[in-house]
């Protein structure tokens, strides 16, 4: 298990990195935390001709508060996201999710953006980016562009990124004050990739659920926003009956795959069970809007 040969570029800047990618003729790879790429290279499942190491590019390791969003630069490691006070204060659901990501040593290296680019269907970061209406910042020798996360994540280990592009940051929308949240996950052992996970955001106005957002993974070849289910709950009271009904609808709509770890039926059950818990928790955490000064 040793990687195949490649040329190595230590990128000094974003421009340098994307030029090197462009020069690789479609065969280049960005190396961020290496916590997903390096295992695949060691297995020789991935054999880039050029490896572009972005770890020394200055200023990419920042979490910044922009208007209504948190911006996570390309070198923000999982540890930083997990420990960041802005994240904990503004997006508690992300703070909660990070506890489930791998192990502390892997979190020291792995990056948020790298995980989004890797697009593993069982990884937390792509799912949370979907939940938080994320925007992906992309650079290439041709300039920069942005793209909504839902367009960016197109399948298992597949994104809309072109071979000469790199992600420079991800923006996450900060939920409104008082938004209820919940994160539920199940994995076989602590720190393993999830068999299934669900994250929920909802506001509570006049006793009704508003702006419901539900993201889920472990049920398809990529993480999903469940817009049908969100719509079904929108404007309803957060009662047990409402949640049961929505969960039944959710389960009926799922067509998960069977694999080594779980049969389709079990995955469907698990998705329902986790969603049921999460919906109730998010509702309980949500603060009535009229009780809070805006």
């Amino acid at each position, binding site marked *: 298990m040793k990687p195949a040969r490649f*040329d190595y570029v230590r990128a000094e800047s974003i421009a340098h990195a994307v030029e090197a990618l462009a020069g690789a003729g479609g065969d280049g790879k960005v190396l961020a935390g*290496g916590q997903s790429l390096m295992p695949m290279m060691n297995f020789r499942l991935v054999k880039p001709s050029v490896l572009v190491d972005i*770890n020394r590019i200055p200023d990419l390791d920042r979490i910044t508060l922009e208007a209504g969003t948190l911006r996570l630069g390309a070198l923000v490691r999982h540890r930083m996201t997990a420990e960041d006070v802005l994240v904990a204060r503004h997006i508690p659901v992300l703070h909660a999710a990070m506890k489930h990501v791998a*192990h502390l*040593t892997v979190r020291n*290296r792995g990056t948020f953006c790298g995980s989004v680019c890797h697009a593993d269907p069982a990884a937390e970061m792509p799912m949370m980016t979907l939940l938080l209406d994320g925007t992906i910042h992309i650079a290439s020798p041709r300039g920069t562009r942005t793209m909504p996360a839902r367009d960016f994540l197109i399948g298992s280990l597949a994104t809309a990124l072109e071979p000469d592009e790199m992600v420079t940051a991800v923006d996450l929308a900060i939920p409104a004050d008082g938004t209820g949240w919940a994160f539920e996950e199940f994995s076989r*052992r602590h720190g393993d990739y999830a068999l299934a996970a669900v994250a929920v955001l909802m506001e509570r106005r006049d006793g009704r659920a508003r702006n419901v957002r539900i993201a889920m993974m472990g049920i398809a070849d990529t993480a999903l926003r469940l817009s049908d289910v969100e719509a079904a709950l929108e404007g309803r009271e957060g009662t047990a009956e409402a949640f049961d009904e929505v969960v039944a609808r959710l389960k009926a709509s799922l067509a998960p795959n069977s694999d080594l770890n779980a049969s389709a039926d079990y995955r469907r059950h698990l998705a329902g069970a986790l969603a049921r818990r999460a919906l109730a928790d998010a509702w309980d955490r949500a603060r009535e809007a009229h009780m809070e000064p805006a």
Partner: protein
Amino acid sequence: MEDRATITLTVNGLTQTRAVDARLLLSDFLRHDLGLTGTHVGCEHGVCGACTILLDGRSARSCLTLAIQADGATIETVEGLGRMGDLGRVQQAFRDHHGLQCGFCTPGFLMTITDMLRHHPLETDDQIREALSGNICRCTGYQHIVDAVRELARARGPLT
């Protein structure tokens, strides 16, 4: 662009300069180029933790790091924690609590724990077990390792 380069790094306080292939894993570099065979390799896909070292003060998988990436970095390995007649704190706690059997996973645990003791609360057994969850030991069932870490966490100073 290069598939070979000369790197200079600090390992356990000593400066080392070597020419390496770009694809050389840091684990192989430490073990075979520098002869620091205390760092072990158990999976080369990031799961077992045997290869854990400190990279600029934080624990990292040396099997998922290229030697060339460590150019200019500061590396600490098990060899830097203490010597046979003069064990370091974590090493001594492992000895006192019989935290090792075959010893193969041990260097990875020692380095992980060194990081955790500096940076993480480790107040409860659950926290300790979570902190150790990225390292596999097939021999000990972890109990004596948890005992060692519990003692170390209670005895340590404030987090940095």
